[in-house]
């Protein structure tokens, strides 16, 4: 327990967390500090490009583990499953409508790539290695949760009689979402070009990575803070409890999956983190198309304002400590 606390504390004073906190604070204080949309999007392209490529190059270096396919499958199953748990928890803990609850549930079945990146940074700092293909698992977990959410709404009769039926083209749009395409594409290119390719672009994707991540988290803090400020009053205690309980529940399931798969300590920890994290890029866009009646303020604030900071500060050290204890790593 002391270990966790020490780790949490050390984690808390890392630059990335502090920049997130700076962004939050600036937004609450109504500073006009802001990151232009194009720059924020440029940084997110950079992070996806770098994390995907490094994952692919690592797979090229260490060979394809027999568990790769099973890990992908486990990720897909978790992503399908988690929304049902989230939906049940939401109906018990909060008074959200079916549509709002389903939309929130979709976010928690999917993943947050920045949380994944932060967790892998912590692993690297701690000197732990992990399976390079976990990036591919992350990509595989982005979309399935959306289908679960739509099914939950359809079962309940759908909003205003529009049915929860999947609009034609939407599935394709979800799977070909820009961030998934870039992540998977960079992973594939990293795997094809291997160490030689990595050598060429290493100084672009490795050294500046932490710095870009700091600026990116500053921006996420700003966006989360503005969201929390605008939606004061919306976050009743039930929602707040959900925003902390759900990642812990997800992490527990991720732990089970990681143990069954026989992943390394780092791999188990990342599987927990993926299950614990909530999407704030792919899923919100899909929800605006598929479930426009759902209130975006609720799901964005929960995912970005509660669960993301929880994972970043307390979650990640907890998941690491648990993974180490359980795998003996």
């Amino acid at each position, binding site marked *: 327990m002391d270990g966790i606390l020490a780790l949490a504390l050390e984690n808390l004073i890392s630059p990335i967390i502090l920049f997130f906190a700076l962004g939050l604070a600036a937004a609450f204080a109504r500073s006009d500090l802001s990151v232009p949309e194009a720059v*924020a999007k440029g940084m997110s392209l950079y992070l996806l490009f770098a994390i995907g490529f490094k994952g692919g190059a690592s797979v090229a270096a260490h060979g394809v583990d027999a568990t790769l396919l099973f890990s992908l499958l486990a990720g897909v199953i978790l992503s399908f499953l988690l929304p049902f748990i989230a939906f049940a928890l939401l109906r018990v803990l909060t008074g959200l409508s079916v549509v709002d609850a389903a939309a929130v549930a979709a976010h928690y079945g999917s993943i947050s790539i920045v949380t994944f990146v932060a967790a892998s940074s912590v692993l690297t700092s701690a000197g732990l290695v992990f399976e390079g293909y976990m990036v591919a698992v992350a990509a595989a977990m982005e979309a399935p949760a959306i289908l679960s959410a739509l099914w939950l709404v359809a079962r309940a009769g759908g909003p205003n009689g*529009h049915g929860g039926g999947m609009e034609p083209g939407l599935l394709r749009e979800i799977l070909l979402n820009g961030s998934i395409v870039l992540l998977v594409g960079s992973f594939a290119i990293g795997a094809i070009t291997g160490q030689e390719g990595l050598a060429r672009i290493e100084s672009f994707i490795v050294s500046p990575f932490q710095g870009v991540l700091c600026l990116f988290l500053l921006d996420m803090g700003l966006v989360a803070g503005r969201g929390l400020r605008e*939606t004061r009053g919306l976050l009743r205690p039930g929602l707040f409890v959900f925003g902390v309980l759900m990642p812990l529940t997800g992490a527990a399931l991720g732990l089970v999956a990681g143990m069954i798969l026989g992943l390394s300590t780092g791999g188990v920890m990342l599987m927990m983190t993926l299950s614990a994290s909530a999407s704030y890029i792919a899923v919100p866009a899909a929800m605006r198309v598929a479930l*426009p009646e759902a*209130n975006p303020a609720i799901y964005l604030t929960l995912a970005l304002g509660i669960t993301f900071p929880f994972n970043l500060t307390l979650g990640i050290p907890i998941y690491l400590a648990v993974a180490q204890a359980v795998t003996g790593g």
Partner: protein
Amino acid sequence: MQTHKAKRVEITIEAVMERRLSEALEGAGVKGFTILPVLGGSGRSGRWSREGQISRASGMIAVVCIVHPNRLDPLLDAAFAVVDRHIGVVSVTDCDVVRADRF
């Protein structure tokens, strides 16, 4: 200069719906439209801003469409089929254009 009556339709809608709206407009026989970026706004769903956003989820766009008056009704019907369940605003203004054959 010789001008002709036309209608200027301005549709403010969520950015994720762009493709659907433009397909609907084309389906309604609209010959052209222009898409403007939107920085931020306010409405029943609260205040929002584009700064720092990384996904298209919470952005909006404004689509301006100039049409011959007798194409207005099919246009509005098509637009509403898309906008209906979504956040957004549609307004129509009378205007004059020069090359009438284009609209």
